[in-house]
C-alpha cells in the first residue's frame, strides 16, 4: 500500500517548509509592512479541491486515496481517529460519477471531513471516547453531519477526544492518547484534540469539533490550525452528545480561515430539532475570503480591536504574551485601531464555568445507565446495575465532574453554587457586551501556554482547568470566537504554534472571518505545517 503513496495535489500546493526557530520567540508577525512575496499564503483546501475536481485535474477518489494513505502512515504515531470510515472511497466514487454525469456539485463535494466522536454519525461508531458507549452506532446523523453529507462532504472518520468533551488534552479518552503533530511527546490539546491534530497533519481537510469551554480553540492553538467556535445557537446541537447544553456548540477546524468559515457556513442555520438554534440569517461568508492579490494597502482600515488586558497578566507564558502582542502589531499594520480593554469579571469565569458545566453534565450524562444502549453490566439488583454500568463505563474525569455537578445542584447548595455561577454568567455577558460596543473584535491568547507534555498535567486537574481561562468566558457569554495560528514558541523539534483568539459580537462570525482571513493571508512566514508532515511528504 505504501508504494502507492503520493503527495496529493491539493496538499502539494501547501509549502512544506519548516520554520527557522530563533532563540526565544519566533515571530511570524514582526514585519510592519505587508509583504506576501516571501512565502505564498495558505490556500483553502476546500476551494483547491473544488477547482481541481471541476477542472478534471484529479478525481475525488484520487484525493481520498492520498488522504487515506497519509492516515495509514501517520496514524500509528498520532492516533487522531477512533474510527476511520470504510466508505470514504465509495463516497468519493459517487462524487466522481456526479462529475462524469455533469451534475451539479455541492460546495463540499469531495471534501474530506473528520468528525469528533461525540457528534452522531448514522451507522458509524459514535462513542464520545467513552467506554459506556463502546460500539454504539447511532441510528441518525447529527444535523451538522447531515448538512455536510448533503453538500457532498465525505466523513473520513471519528476523531479522538476527551471523554464526553471533559478535558483539555485528549488524554481523557477511554481508548487512546492522541499526539501533537508538532511534537509527538506533547498533547494536541482538547477536548477536540483528534479533530485539531487530524487537520494539522492533513489527515483530513477540515473537521468538526465541539466547544463547551474552549475545546475547539485551545487544540487549534496547540496544533497550529484555525478553530472556529460559532455563536451559541448558530449551529444545531441535534446529534451532539450533550456535555453542558447551555454552553456546547459544534465548531470547525481548518488549515485556513476560509476553510473553517466555509465549513461553518455549511452547518449553520436554524434546525427545528434544536429549540436553542437561532433563526438568525446565515450570511454568505465566502465574500470575506478575497485573494490576497486584491487586498488594499490597509485592508483592515478602521477596524477597532480591543486587546483584553486580563489575558496578558501573570500566569501567561512570556512567549505566548509576545506572540499575542506581535499579532496585535500586525493587525495594527493592517489598519486596525488597537486599544486595551478591561473585563473586570474575567477571572470569575473559570469557577463559574466549572460549576455550570459540571452541573449540566451531571444531568446530561444520567441517560447513560446501561438500560437501553451502551455498556450494561450484569447485576443482581437495579441499583447495582446502575452502579456497575456507570462505574465501569465512565472514566475518572467524567466521574469527578458528575460528582461536582451533583453536589452543586443538591438541595442546600444550589444557591451557593449553581445560582451564583449563573449570576456571574450574567456579569460576564454584560462586560463582553460593553467591550464589544466599543470594539469590533476583542483579542487575547487562546491559551496561557503552547502545547505541554503528555502526562504533564494529568494528575493536576486544577492546573489543567486553569488552562481554560482564556476561552471559558466566551462560552458563558455565548459569543463567537476564532483561534488562528499567529506565531511559534520554542519547543519540540521545530517550535510550537501559538494561537490568537478573536472574539466577536453575537452572530457576527462574518467579521471574525474577514479579519482572520486578512490576518492569515498577510502573516509573514505563514503556513503552519507541522514537522511530521514535512517528513511524511
Amino acid at each position, binding site marked *: 500500500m505504501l508504494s502507492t503513496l503520493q503527495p496529493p495535489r491539493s496538499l502539494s500546493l501547501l509549502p512544506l517548509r519548516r520554520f527557522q526557530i530563533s532563540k526565544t520567540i519566533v515571530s511570524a508577525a514582526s514585519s510592519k509592512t505587508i509583504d506576501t512575496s516571501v512565502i505564498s499564503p495558505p490556500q483553502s483546501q476546500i476551494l483547491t479541491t473544488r477547482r481541481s475536481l471541476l477542472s478534471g485535474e484529479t478525481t475525488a477518489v484520487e484525493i481520498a486515496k492520498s488522504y487515506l494513505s497519509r492516515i495509514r502512515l501517520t496514524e500509528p504515531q498520532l492516533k487522531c481517529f477512533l474510527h476511520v470510515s470504510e466508505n470514504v472511497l465509495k463516497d468519493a466514487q459517487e462524487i466522481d460519477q456526479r462529475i462524469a454525469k455533469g451534475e451539479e456539485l455541492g460546495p463540499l463535494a469531495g471534501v474530506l471531513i473528520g468528525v469528533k466522536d461525540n457528534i452522531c454519525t448514522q451507522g458509524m461508531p459514535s462513542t464520545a471516547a467513552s467506554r459506556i*458507549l463502546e460500539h454504539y452506532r447511532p441510528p441518525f446523523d*447529527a444535523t451538522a453531519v447531515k448538512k455536510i453529507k448533503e453538500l457532498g462532504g465525505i466523513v473520513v472518520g471519528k476523531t479522538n477526544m476527551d471523554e464526553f468533551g471533559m478535558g483539555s488534552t485528549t488524554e481523557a479518552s477511554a481508548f487512546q492518547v492522541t499526539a501533537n503533530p508538532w511534537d509527538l511527546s506533547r498533547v494536541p490539546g482538547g477536548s477536540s484534540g483528534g479533530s485539531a491534530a487530524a487537520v494539522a497533519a492533513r489527515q483530513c481537510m477540515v473537521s468538526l469539533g465541539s466547544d463547551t469551554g474552549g475545546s475547539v480553540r485551545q487544540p487549534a492553538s496547540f496544533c497550529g490550525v484555525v478553530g472556529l467556535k460559532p455563536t451559541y445557537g448558530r449551529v444545531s446541537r441535534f446529534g451532539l452528545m*450533550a456535555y453542558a447544553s447551555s454552553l456546547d456548540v459544534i465548531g470547525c477546524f481548518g488549515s485556513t480561515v476560509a476553510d473553517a468559515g466555509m465549513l461553518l457556513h455549511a452547518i449553520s442555520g436554524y434546525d*427545528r430539532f434544536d429549540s436553542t438554534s437561532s433563526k438568525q440569517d446565515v450570511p454568505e461568508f465566502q465574500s470575506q475570503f478575497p485573494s490576497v492579490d486584491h487586498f488594499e494597502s490597509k485592508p483592515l482600515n478602521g477596524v477597532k480591536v480591543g486587546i483584553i488586558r486580563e489575558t496578558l497578566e501573570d500566569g501567561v507564558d512570556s512567549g505566548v504574551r509576545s506572540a499575542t502582542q506581535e499579532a496585535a502589531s500586525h493587525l495594527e499594520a493592517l489598519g486596525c485601531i488597537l486599544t486595551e480593554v478591561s473585563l473586570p469579571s474575567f477571572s470569575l469565569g473559570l469557577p463559574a464555568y466549572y460549576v455550570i458545566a459540571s452541573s449540566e453534565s451531571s*444531568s446530561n450524562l444520567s441517560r447513560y445507565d446501561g438500560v*437501553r444502549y451502551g455498556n450494561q453490566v*450484569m447485576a443482581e439488583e437495579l441499583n447495582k446495575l446502575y452502579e456497575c454500568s456507570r462505574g465501569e463505563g465512565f472514566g475518572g474525569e467524567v466521574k469527578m465532574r458528575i460528582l461536582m455537578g451533583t453536589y452543586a445542584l443538591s*438541595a442546600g447548595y444550589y444557591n451557593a453554587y449553581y445560582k451564583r455561577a449563573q449570576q456571574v454568567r450574567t456579569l460576564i455577558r454584560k462586560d463582553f457586551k460593553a467591550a464589544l460596543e466599543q470594539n469590533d473584535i476583542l483579542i487575547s491568547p487562546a491559551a496561557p501556554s503552547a502545547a505541554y507534555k503528555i502526562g504533564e498535567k494529568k494528575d493536576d486537574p486544577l492546573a489543567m482547568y486553569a488552562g481554560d481561562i482564556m476561552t471559558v468566558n466566551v462560552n458563558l457569554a455565548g459569543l463567537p470566537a476564532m483561534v488562528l495560528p499567529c506565531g511559534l514558541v520554542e519547543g519540540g523539534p521545530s517550535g510550537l504554534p501559538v494561537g490568537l483568539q478573536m472574539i466577536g459580537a453575537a452572530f457576527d462570525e462574518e467579521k471574525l472571518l474577514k479579519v482572520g482571513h486578512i490576518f492569515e493571508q498577510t502573516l509573514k512566514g505563514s503556513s503552519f505545517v507541522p514537522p511530521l508532515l514535512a517528513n511524511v511528504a
Partner: protein
Amino acid sequence: MSTTLLRTFQPNQFSLLGTSLLRRRRSNNFSVRFCGSQTTTTHEAKQSSPTRVAPKNHKSNKLDEILRDYEAVIGIETHVQLSTLTKAFCSCSNNYGSYPNTSICPVCMGLPGALPVLNSKVVEFGVRLGLALNCDLSLKSKFDRKQYFYPDLPKGYQISQFDIPIASGGYVDLDIPLEFGGGHRRFGITRVHMEEDAGKLLHSDTGDYSQVDLNRAGVPLLEIVSEPDMRSGIEAAEYACEMQRIARYLGVSNGNMQEGSLRCDVNISIRPIGQAEFGTKVEIKNLNAFSAISRAIDYEISRQALLYNQGKADQIVTETRLWEEGAQKTVTMRKKEGLADYRYFPEPDLPEVILTKEYVDSIRASLPELPEAKRRRYEAMGLGMQDVLFLANDVSVAEYFDAVIGKGAEVKLAANWIMSDIAAYLKNEKLSINDIKLTPQELAELIAAIKDGTISGKIGKEILFELLAKGGTVKGMIKAKDLVQITDPVEIEKMVIQVVSENPKQLEQYRSGKTKLQGYFAGQIMKMSKGKANPGLLNKILLEKLNAKD
C-alpha cells in the same frame, strides 16, 4: 426532515431495543427486586364514568366515636394525560395500547444527542386547564429537570416545571351529591404544571428480568396540585371526579382512569379537632377509581385515628402507601427517609415558555361552558340538584340536553326523557349518547308531539327506541305507522259504544257496582284504536256511557 430522520431510524429502533431485551432475557442478568411487585398490578376494576360510593356503615360505633374527635386534611395531586396527537417533546404518536416500543424515537428513548422540542399543544392545553381552574397564568414560565434514576425514565430526568408552573392559585367549585349530604364546596388549586410521562416496566413472572416499554415515555401530562382543603373520602372523590369532568369538557384528556389517563395521588393526615398544626402526611398511590379514592381515604382515616387513639401516633410516618383493591386496605410501599432531592435545575435544552396576553385571551374566548357554570345554569332553569348533577356530569349528555332544549323542548320533559328512557337504553346497549341515532331535534319533536297530543305518551315511548336505534324523524314515523292520536270525540264515542254494546255482561256488573271494570272497557277500546285513542278523552266518554241511564 423529520420524516427522513424517523424513517431511517425505524429499522434500527426495533433491533436496538429488541436485541438488548433478548440479551437480557437469555442471560437473566437483570433481576430487579423492587419493594414488592405491586407496581405492576393490573387493574381490573372497571371505571368508565364517575360512580359514587356509599360510605360504609359497618364501622363499629366505637370507631365512629373515635373518628368524631379527629379531622382529616386531604390534598390531591392529579396527573392528567393529555390527548395530543403527538408526544410532548417529539413527533411520536401518542397512542394508548400500541405494541410495546413501537411509538418511540431517539428523543423519547433518550438517545445520545437527541433534543426535546416542545409540542405547542401542550402549552395550549395547560392554559386551557389553568383558566378552567381559575388560576393565574405565568406569562413567562420555564421547564426544569427533575432528576432520578429509574429504568422507565430514559434520560435520567423528567422534564417538568418546578418553581414557575404555567398556572397557579386557582380553585374549583363542585356540588356534593345529595346522597352524600349535598352542599356546595370550593377547593383551592395550588398549581398546574406541564411535564412528561415516564415509560412502563413489565416484570417477568419469574422476576428474573424486566422489560421497558417506552411508548408512554414523553407523553404530555398536566399535574394539578390541590390545596389541602378536603376533609373526607367523598370530598376527595368528588374533587377527582370534577377534575375528570373538567378535562373532558375541555377536551384536553379522555380522563380514563383505567388507562392511567387520570391518576390521583392522595396526601392525607389527621389531627385532633381543634389542633392547628397538621399531622404526619401519608401519600396513597394506586387509586384507579373514584370509589377507590373514597374508600382508601376512609380506611386511612380510620387507621390513623386508631393509632392516635391507642397512643401510637408515632407509628404514623411519612411514607407512600398503596391501596390494595382486593384487601380493601392500604399497605406500606416505601418509607420516605428525609426529602428526596431531585436536584431540579432549569432545562437548558428548551427556551422559556412565553405567553402573550392575546394568546391567553384567545384561549379564554374559546373555552366551553364548564361544569360549574352548567350546573348553575341548569339549577336556574328550575331543575332539581339530582337532575342538574346527572345532566352536567357528562359533557356529551349536557351538550345533548342543551341541544334538545335549544330546539324548544320543555326543560323538565327533556331532562326526564334523557335521564330515564334514554339513559336506560344507553346502559342496556352500552352506548354513549353520541352513538344514538335520535337527534336532539327529533327528541324535541317527540316531546312536542306528545305535549300537543299528536301522539300519546305510550306511543312516544314505543317509537323512541326505534328512533334511538335507527334514526328517522318523528313526523315520518307517525305518518308511516299511522300513529296520530285519535282526539275526535265522535270517533272515540263510536268505539266506546261498540265496545260497551259488545260486552253487556261486564256492563251489567259495572252498573251493579263493580266500577273497577272501567279499566277493562278502556283497555278494549284502546286495543280497538291500536293505542291511538286519547286516553283522557276516552275515559271521559267511557264514563259518560257507562254511567248513562238508558
